[in-house]
């Protein structure tokens, strides 16, 4: 239990650090972000709103400490300010409408990549030098070397533009009413397929090699020999003895790689015009929409921290040593 509390405290600290960075960044950097922003937004803002922005970005030269606390208060109540590129929608609203799609894409591809990669790793380590062990690692490493978004561009070009078998943009067909029915779910799945596939392909190699390498170490442990000597079925030794113990580093690295997958998902969304946070991020960058960028940074950080905490829960379940310690 104390393990989980310690982790929770650490995540809160990390989140606080992100908020503080967010607060300090526009105040420490040279130049006036508000002026840059205004020249892009074609003067659609009212004077009071410009003043509010100046206070938020800290370019009005107000006292730092009180401003910091009011900033903390605003963030904790979910007030990220107004979006410039989608004026006058509040940033929180823009993000809330797009986060579900990013979560859907990110979680789907992460779960598939982790399960598939670990299974492949287990099998490759179990048959050292076999077909899977010699062909898959170099191939997957090569595919894993491509930037996510470039593989996405390639997939979109081949399947979407050349063959015309995959939907090219958005999360569901235009004109379809979102609802909990088979037609809509199948349509969403069809739109999800290519973006998820590219993320899975790029990240698969890392999972497989990680699992394979720890499995190889585990396979030479005495308890594996003992299990064989007892005459247990190979299948059982592989999954319940070797893989279960080799899985721990994999679970730890899962927490670490969530942030990485999110980054890949954001870029993939840009290519597929998938209506998640990443797609909006591009618009935010082009429109110099600083409040939206900062809001996205905090939201995504929070999501990653929560995901890490969930991974910790799984870890405690898998490794009895942390429960006692």
């Amino acid at each position, binding site marked *: 239990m104390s393990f989980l509390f310690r982790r929770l405290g*650490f*995540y809160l600290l*990390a989140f606080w*650090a*992100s908020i503080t960075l967010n607060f300090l*960044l*526009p105040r420490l*950097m*040279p*130049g006036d*972000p508000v002026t840059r922003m205004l020249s892009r937004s074609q003067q659609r803002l009212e004077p009071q709103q410009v003043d509010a922005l100046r206070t938020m970005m800290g370019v009005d030269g107000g006292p730092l400490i009180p401003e910091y606390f009011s900033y903390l208060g605003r963030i904790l109540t979910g007030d990220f300010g107004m979006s410039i590129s989608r004026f006058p929608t509040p940033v929180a609203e823009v993000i809330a409408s797009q986060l579900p799609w990013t979560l859907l894409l990110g979680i789907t591809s992460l779960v598939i990549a982790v399960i598939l990669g670990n299974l492949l790793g287990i099998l490759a380590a179990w*048959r*050292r*030098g*076999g077909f899977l062990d*010699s062909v898959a690692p170099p191939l997957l*490493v090569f595919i894993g*070397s*491509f*930037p*996510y*978004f*470039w*593989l996405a*561009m*390639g997939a*979109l*070009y081949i399947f979407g*533009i*050349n063959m015309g078998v995959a939907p090219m943009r958005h999360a569901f067909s235009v004109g379809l009413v979102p609802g909990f029915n088979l037609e809509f779910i199948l349509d969403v799945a069809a739109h999800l397929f290519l973006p998820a596939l590219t993320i899975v392909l790029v990240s698969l190699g890392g999972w497989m090699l990680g699992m394979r*390498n720890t499995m*190889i170490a585990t396979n*030479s442990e005495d308890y*594996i*020999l003992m299990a*064989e*000597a007892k005459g247990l079925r*190979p299948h059982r030794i592989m999954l319940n003895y070797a893989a279960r113990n080799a899985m721990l580093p994999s679970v730890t690295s899962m927490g670490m790689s*969530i*942030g*990485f997958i*999110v*980054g890949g998902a*954001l*870029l993939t969304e*840009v*290519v597929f015009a998938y209506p998640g946070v990443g797609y909006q*991020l*591009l618009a935010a*960058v082009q429109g110099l929409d*600083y409040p939206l*960028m*900062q809001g*996205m*940074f905090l939201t*995504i*950080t929070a999501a*990653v*921290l929560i995901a*890490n905490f969930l991974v910790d829960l799984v870890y405690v379940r898998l490794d009895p040593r942390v429960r006692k310690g």
Partner: protein
Amino acid sequence: MSQITTDSLTLIPEDSAAESAADRARLGATRLLRTLLRNGKAVAGLSIILVFIALALLAPVFFPGDPARITSAGAAAPSLEHWLGTTTKGQDVLGLTLWGARSSLFVGFAAGILSTVIGVLIGLSGAYFGRGLDEALSLVTNVFLLVPGLPLLVILAAFMPPGLGTVIVVLVITGWAGSARVMRSQAMSIRGKDYVAAAQVSGERPLRIMVREILPNMASVVMTTLLGCIIGSIGAQAGLEFLGLGDVNTLSWGTNLFWATSDGSLMLGQWWIFVPSGLAIALVAFALALCNYAVDEITNPRLRRPKHATKSTAATTVARKEEK
């Protein structure tokens, strides 16, 4: 077990334990290099990287003048005149790709090397001095590891003045933590070795112990971390520039891809515009990854490819022991 015995054996006959440790490590480094050159993966990886570096250096020879100038009608497919075709604006794609290699490789290597150096400094000093300093440095490292990289890159790059320097600084800020963590855990295990204790007893200064005793003995880990950092930096740079957050006026593989999408060449089916730059990034990253796996295999013999494949009907470990 064997580790402990060799350590204590070599310690006794030498007059200066500290010198022997450093010498042994230097010998180890040259041996690592020689073994690397005998490893197929390493040779393949190094050759690809050298070819790319050579092409980047020779870009002004092959394509003198401004590579971004317009040389033909827009969006021409590959031909004898333009081997990789031209962009929507009419620039030669091969020229853009070769010139792009210069800043992509430079930024990737510079940011990778800087992140590794910072990682080594922080990891080593944390592991060596321990206690409060270690706690504080580990905390900062772990916070930076947890904060998702791309969104952090985006807000940093958005607020800083655009330019090549910004891109490098931003990549280092997001990239050092991973290497610091690896360095710390590796340095921790070496910190406990007898020869470090011997050096401390003989009155060497902490800096000298860290640089001469501990660092050379983690050469292979530094190497894999460095390669990993360069791969990460090249990828992150491409992602950043693809979003339009780099300096759109510098030529690089990332900005090439940015222009390819913003000109809509993907939707128009002009594959020759976006394929070369992405393929170049992938090839360089793959070559670096190959070197990385080679170093891994050399330092961890268990990962080497077995000479014979294990058949599903092959004798198990127990059965082989019984035969003896």
